[in-house]
């Protein structure tokens, strides 16, 4: 039995004539301790997939099993880093993290909780901004707060929806290492949604492409057989890395082409004429 299993998942938004099937026939199984990355085009349904797994929405049909049990609700066992940060704007950075830590460790005393908040805020290098509100932060800083908030809850499985999208290369690299670090302690399980193939190869055990929607479904998986810990600088010279990277990019380009040729709809333009204000 896999740690996380998705069986024949379909997800339709809307009803009747407006219904669009975003996800079709999604099958995925992740073993305990695995790091899986999903790459996909924008709008293909990656966030929808994440929300199905973390329990925020329910599939139209099919089942999501977590440790053998159907997922019916959110759980502290599955920590989420939202794509749009979702920080509470009226709370400071520290308060945002504190709120999560307090829910995750209801029995611990205040000193412990405060220490934990400080540690995780320091981990994402935001200690100087701990008393700032989200609107005073840059997009990248907000994203780091979201990372700290999710990781500070010490979840068994970490679900990340494009968590490092708004970051510069350097900060991005540091946070990738921090996430890998936390993942490898006590062998957690991780699911990473990303649009960066290199990031996927550096971090994951397997990369699975999500085909463009509607009716998006998962493509064939690519195994990354590179020893851990991986060295970013040496990676570029690694023959295995080059091969896998080329294979994935080729595949993505192919399905991208396919999408273009499929969508040869003709658009009817409205009949517009410039209006004369003189006559």
């Amino acid at each position, binding site marked *: 039995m896999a740690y996380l299993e998705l069986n024949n998942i379909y997800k339709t938004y809307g009803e009747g004539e407006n219904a669009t099937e975003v996800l079709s026939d999604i099958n995925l199984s992740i073993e305990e301790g695995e790091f899986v990355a999903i790459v996909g085009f924008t709008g293909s349904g990656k966030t929808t997939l994440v929300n199905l797994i973390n329990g925020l929405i329910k599939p139209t049909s099919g089942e999501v099993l977590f440790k053998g049990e159907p997922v019916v*609700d*959110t759980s502290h066992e599955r920590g989420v880093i*939202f794509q749009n940060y979702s920080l*509470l*704007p*009226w*709370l400071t950075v520290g308060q945002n993290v504190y*709120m*999560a830590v307090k*829910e995750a460790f209801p029995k611990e005393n205040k000193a412990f909780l405060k220490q934990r908040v400080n540690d995780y805020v320091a981990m994402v290098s935001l200690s100087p901004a701990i008393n700032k509100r989200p609107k005073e932060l840059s997009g990248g800083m907000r994203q780091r707060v979201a990372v700290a908030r999710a990781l500070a809850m010490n979840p068994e499985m970490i679900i990340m929806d494009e968590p490092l999208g708004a970051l510069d290369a350097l900060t991005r690299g540091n946070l990738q290492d921090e996430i890998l670090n936390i993942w490898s302690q006590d062998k957690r399980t991780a699911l990473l949604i990303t649009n960066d193939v290199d990031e996927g190869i550096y971090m994951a055990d397997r990369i699975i492409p999500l085909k463009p929607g509607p009716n998006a479904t998962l493509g064939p998986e690519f195994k990354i057989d590179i020893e851990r810990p991986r060295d970013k600088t040496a990676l570029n010279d690694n023959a295995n890395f080059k091969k896998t990277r080329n294979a994935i990019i080729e595949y993505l380009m192919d399905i991208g082409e396919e999408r273009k040729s499929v969508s040869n709809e003709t658009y009817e333009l409205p009949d517009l004429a410039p209006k004369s204000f003189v006559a």
Partner: protein
Amino acid sequence: MEQEITLKKEGKSMAFLKPLLAKVTPKFQKADLLPSLKKAGITVLSILLFLGLWHLGSKALYNKEANFKIEKALTEQGQVAADAERACIASGDSSCQPNTLPSPTQVWASLQSLIADHKVINADKAAFVEKMAATNAKLVAKGKTAIVYTGRASFVDIVLTSIKTVFAGFLLALLIAVPIGVIIGLSPSLRSAFNWFIQIFKPVSPVVWYLLVFMIVKTLYIGDSSDNAFVISFISVGLCAMWATLVNTAMGVSSVDKDYINVAKVLKLGTFQKVFKVILPSSLPLIFTGLRITLSVAWMVLIAIELLAQSQGLGLFVWEEFQNGANDSNAKIIVAMFVIGIIGFLLDQIMLTVQNMVSFNKNEGV
């Protein structure tokens, strides 16, 4: 080239102000000062213009009524009577003054006399308290109620009473509208259940609210000789003004950003935590917008309701002065008008400050 010259000029003329400015307002920039000076200048100018037009207008009205009076005396009683009338008006005798829009100077004089009157009454009050101190001490010792001053209220007392009434009404509105707004905001079915109720009662006029409250409070106080005018007026004000808060609260609570709800779900907050830590904070800006509208509506309807309820306050003051028809009544009414306007403006400013304090997206503030 031209620009450079003007810039230099400006630099020179402002130079003497520099050290002064640095002392008074360090964060003030030269660039900020010119527009703000200009703005202040425009405000002063427009006030002067307003006073000027007012003065001319009241003079024209005065002359029209005076001429009519003289004309009337002439046609009805002849030249002698007309001359007498003219002399009487010119002498400023109060018996024959035209009773029309008072001039700014008359209003200013009225304000002075109202303040003087307040001082006299205050002195009276102090003297009374002093005189009765010994007697009251005895009465209290015996367990009886002390005798209090029941003389005429001064204008300042009247204004304070009005402010007290409006705050009581505002508090009532807040206590009713916010909790109900939160509850119906949380539940879509309650929202549709309450919708007709809100739609029907929201547009009801203050006069009708007053009558409704009067019917109920009168019966509740039946057999009780104590004065219930204050109770009736503040309840009417509260009921009349609470709708903006009710609607805004319900809207704020029901339209919380979905991202925040998702956070609450992922953190697995309990219902209580979810309401108080996520839903309420995120709807505070809208709730305060509602409260600001409520306070200004409360102040506006207060005047009408005090008048109807015969409850002490500015509304009753205005009405009594109008009925009274004394020589300076009209001027007093205008004084009251300005006081009402200025207090309303100040109340709104207070609410605006509070609203900005609670709004976490400062740039979204209204």
